[in-house]
């Protein structure tokens, strides 16, 4: 569990406190598999769901993921089955749902943040939607940071392998040594932010 994972959980927990709700969930879009994976769950009523992915075309969460439009739903007539297959599957039938997209900087929807069963007012309102949208922006920032952090170790490993290969070539001859010296100089310049010049 990384600091970013904990931060995601903290964001969701804070959201359920700021917009009083006993349960909430963060789902991440897995475009190649066309599904929504559960990333964070808050609330006892949703714990059984923590490892069950959702299809991208299911329920309110799928609709928000595909459309990018937030929505608040009040299932006032016991019609939750139309609204959220996710919760029906584990026998939890919320009366109210608020779902907003998590949108990356490039405009792509990368997740859905949902809260269930608003406490206090009978339904989630527009202010709640706006506030949860702000939490969703924090989720997007955190996911972006996690992606960058997970990318860097891979780059480090590749760089180490490249260095090993260059070291072997450098040891083979004087020409090889000079070639490798030039390559490493260019890489160093690039990493230090000066870019690569012709």
């Amino acid at each position, binding site marked *: 569990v990384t600091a970013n994972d904990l931060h995601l959980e903290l964001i969701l927990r804070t959201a359920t406190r700021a917009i009083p709700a006993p349960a909430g969930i963060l789902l991440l879009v897995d475009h190649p598999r066309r599904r929504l994976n559960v990333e964070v769950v808050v609330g006892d009523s949703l714990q059984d769901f923590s490892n069950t992915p959702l299809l991208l075309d299911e329920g309110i969460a799928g609709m928000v993921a595909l459309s990018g439009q937030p929505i608040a739903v009040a299932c006032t007539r016991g019609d939750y089955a139309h609204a959220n297959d996710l919760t029906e599957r584990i026998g939890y039938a919320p009366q109210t749902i608020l779902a907003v997209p998590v949108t990356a900087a490039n405009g792509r929807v990368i997740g859905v943040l949902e809260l269930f069963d608003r406490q206090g007012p009978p339904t989630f*309102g*527009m202010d709640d939607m706006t506030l949860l949208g702000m939490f969703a922006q924090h989720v997007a920032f955190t996911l972006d940071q996690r992606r960058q952090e997970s990318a860097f170790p891979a780059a480090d490993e590749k760089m180490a392998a490249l260095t090993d290969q260059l070291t072997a070539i450098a040891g083979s001859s004087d020409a090889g040594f000079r070639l490798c010296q030039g390559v490493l100089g260019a890489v160093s310049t690039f990493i230090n932010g000066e870019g690569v010049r012709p």
Partner: protein
Amino acid sequence: MTATLFRPAWSDAFAAGVLPKVRPIPPLDNITPEWAWGGSTGAGVEVAILDSGIEANHPAVGKVQRYLTIHEEADGFIYDEQPHDDAFGHGTACAGIIRSIAPQCSLTSVKVLGPDLTGRGAMFIAGLRWVIESGAQVCNLSLSSSHAEFFGQLQQLTDSAYFKHLPLVCAPHNLPLPSYPSLFGVVLSVAASEERDPERLAYNPDPPVEFGAPGIDVEVAWRNGGTLTVTGNSFAAPHVSGLVARLLSKHPGLTVFQIKTVLRALATNVARDQLNGGEQ
């Protein structure tokens, strides 16, 4: 962190006590709801809905006159005009609202969102282009794209719709994030207000979102013949689409800027008490 993150959402402009009064324009005072759409049912006006499809024969919707589903094949888009269903209920909800206001309008369902579709911007753009060429008189867009890469194409298409006198009635994202084409000047951008009367609109003098319509705790049609109570800008836009259908049925040939003028003149927050001798 910039201050812009904490700007109010577009619908907050229409909240009670926030929406300012706007000055009347006396020559336009002859425009009344009765003149604009009184007695009109939307007959003869085709309303296209770009969305998740429409569930035909839903009690709140009735008959859908035309369908289009766009499939992407290796060699390009396939335009399938066979009847389809609604993947989620969102399009059915929009259709039900429009039919509740303009019961005799003709509905065209353009499905760009669903299980076999990814809702990608390219599909959205292809659907919008098809509608512009289709001859529809009103287009409801309760979807939008935040992808910067589609900004240019969507702006070109919305201009094209404007020049063809096709009003695009759009729902913006709830946050002040980029959402195209709902934030373009040539569309009718509509956010949710607390208004309960489906025929009463508000005008926001501080664009990009110019109109407010019912969209908070609205009972709408949903999948499998059901209903839900929902909140979102998605459900405000169809109210305006329905009213525009009635307006065009009664006054065919109005251009987009004329339609906006009529809606602005009828807005609930026009200070009509200033009309005779009041401050101008």
